[in-house]
């Protein structure tokens, strides 16, 4: 019988520990598929961070390094400077990247560090049970904003992609979501664009994924998906914030020509 679909070789056989309805599984899959399709699985080092994906290194079939909370872009810098011809990516949540690791991500981008950051924004701390994140929406109830996030008391959400896109060193920044097939295909394209930017040495690249967290949002998976569409996207509009002019179709080709 013909195989019409199989698990990508970019993932190991270890079963995911993620909650039902969480988008980490989809994001893992499209990154892993992209590594295989682009032929870079053997040449990639991933950097796991702290949060629900602390052990993403057990799922991605590439070599991997686990980093301290927020420090993944610094760790990735050390790896990439050592292994200049390899692909290095970080996989970070919003608490990791947008709170404790703000300095590391901003400066990695400002240096134009030739790494890729995959940033998963689910507007909440997942692993530590639903605390307010820098990306938590105004009015959103979390375990540390039990009366809803109040701007006068807890400030405003950070739009990371818009922020990073202001930096000259950032070559490609795109925000995507995974609510349906079309968006997932689009997200996968963004992942590949980010890898291509790194391969071509254009600078720092980042893809922000809007993701659900049914467990900590206290919602059913379908409800969570609707909440993401209705509440998160207005605060975090989808689209490419940096690198709109890059000719991705010919990017790899130009690179290949330069090498030959």
């Amino acid at each position, binding site marked *: 019988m013909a195989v019409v679909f199989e698990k990508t070789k970019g993932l190991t056989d270890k079963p995911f520990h993620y909650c039902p309805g969480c988008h980490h599984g989809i994001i893992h899959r499209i990154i892993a598929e992209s590594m295989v399709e682009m032929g870079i699985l053997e040449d990639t080092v991933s950097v796991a961070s702290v949060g629900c994906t602390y052990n993403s290194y057990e799922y991605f079939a590439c070599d991997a390094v*686990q980093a301290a909370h927020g420090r993944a872009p610094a760790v990735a810098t*050390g790896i990439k400077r050592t292994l200049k011809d390899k692909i290095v990516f970080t996989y970070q949540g919003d608490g990791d990247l947008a709170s404790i690791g703000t300095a*590391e991500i901003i400066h990695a981008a400002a240096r134009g560090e030739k790494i890729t950051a995959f940033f998963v924004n689910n507007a909440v701390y997942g692993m530590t049970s639903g605390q307010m994140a820098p990306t938590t929406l105004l009015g959103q109830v979390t375990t540390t904003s039990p009366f809803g996030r109040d701007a006068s008391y807890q400030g405003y959400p950070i739009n990371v992609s818009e922020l990073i896109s202001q930096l000259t060193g950032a070559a490609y920044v795109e925000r995507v979501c995974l609510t349906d097939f079309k968006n997932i295909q689009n997200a996968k394209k963004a992942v590949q664009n980010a890898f291509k930017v790194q391969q071509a040495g254009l600078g720092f690249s980042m893809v922000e994924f809007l993701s659900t967290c049914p467990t900590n949002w206290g919602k059913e998976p379908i409800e969570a998906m609707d909440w993401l569409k209705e509440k998160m996207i207005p605060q975090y509009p989808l689209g490419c914030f940096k690198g709109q002019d890059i000719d991705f179709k010919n990017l790899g080709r130009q690179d290949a020509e330069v090498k030959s």
Partner: protein
Amino acid sequence: MATKRVLMKGNEVIAEAALRAGCRNYFGYPITPQTEVMHYMAKKMVEIGGNFVQAESEVSAINMVYGAAAAGARVMTSSSSPGISLKQEGISYIAGAELPAVAVNIVRAGPGLGGIQPSQGDYWQATKGGGHGDYRNLVIAPASVQELYELTVEAFNLADTYRMLVMILGDGTLGQMMEPVAFRDEEPIKVVDKPWAATGRGGRDTHNMITSIYINPDDLEAKNRELQEKYKYIEEHEVRYEEFGVEDAEIVITAFSTCSRICRNVIRQAAELGIKVGMIRPITLWPFPSAPIAAAADRDNVKAFLDIELSAGQMVEDVRLAVCGKKPVYFYGRMGGNLPTQKEILEKIIAIHEGREV
């Protein structure tokens, strides 16, 4: 072997030694009084095609070290006390993930922002852990610019051999001091295979994972036992110290690095007064040379120990543990960036000799 002697500043010699040891990755953040290490690296590392990154903070610098070490490189960072405090998180992770790296602490006086003058007040932080968890760093305390050179080269060999962080513990005096240094034609570089490094699979059947997290308590305990076995081996094999005059000394001084330099002169002055003083100078602060101190405590000729430090008395606790109550252990220290004078130490020796010291 030694071909040329050049006059160089301690901090610059550390950087030169690292380059000679094959270190091609340096990540740092500016802080006085270690800045010359960074300045030297900023120029020379780029000239030879290595990596120099001025990080956004000490926290980032040590994590860049973590990344480069994970990728199999020889890597170094340098800083001074407040900066080393910031690096402790990364140092703990380096210990947990068993990565080889060299960190230099040109100690200044604390606590807090403190001052920029020399101190040995980071002894506890360096030798007892510093960051969270049960771990050790190999801590080396050179006492001259020549030793800074030789021991920095050796630090990289030790780091690679034991897959751990080796700390060079100097102080503002040593870092800023200029002395002649004789460089070798060829460095004794120990090449260690790193099949564990995350370099990209490149055809390997399995993927390498560098991590310090073990969620299962039994796994984490097993990991800790492995680490402790390693530390025990190091305690048995890597203790370094210098000892002189102990065989007929009435008083044995314990002092490391800059303090030992001052004490050397005092020992000569005491001899002129007819007081026999010897010295045990720890070169490795961890593993600590407990055995030679214990052996000296057992000698009939040794009546007392005198520990001299640029602190309120930190290493003296390890000296007392080694002496184990067999002989009195006296202490004299200066703080705030001040150095003890020869006169101050000599007066202390005379007081001990005359039985006036309590």
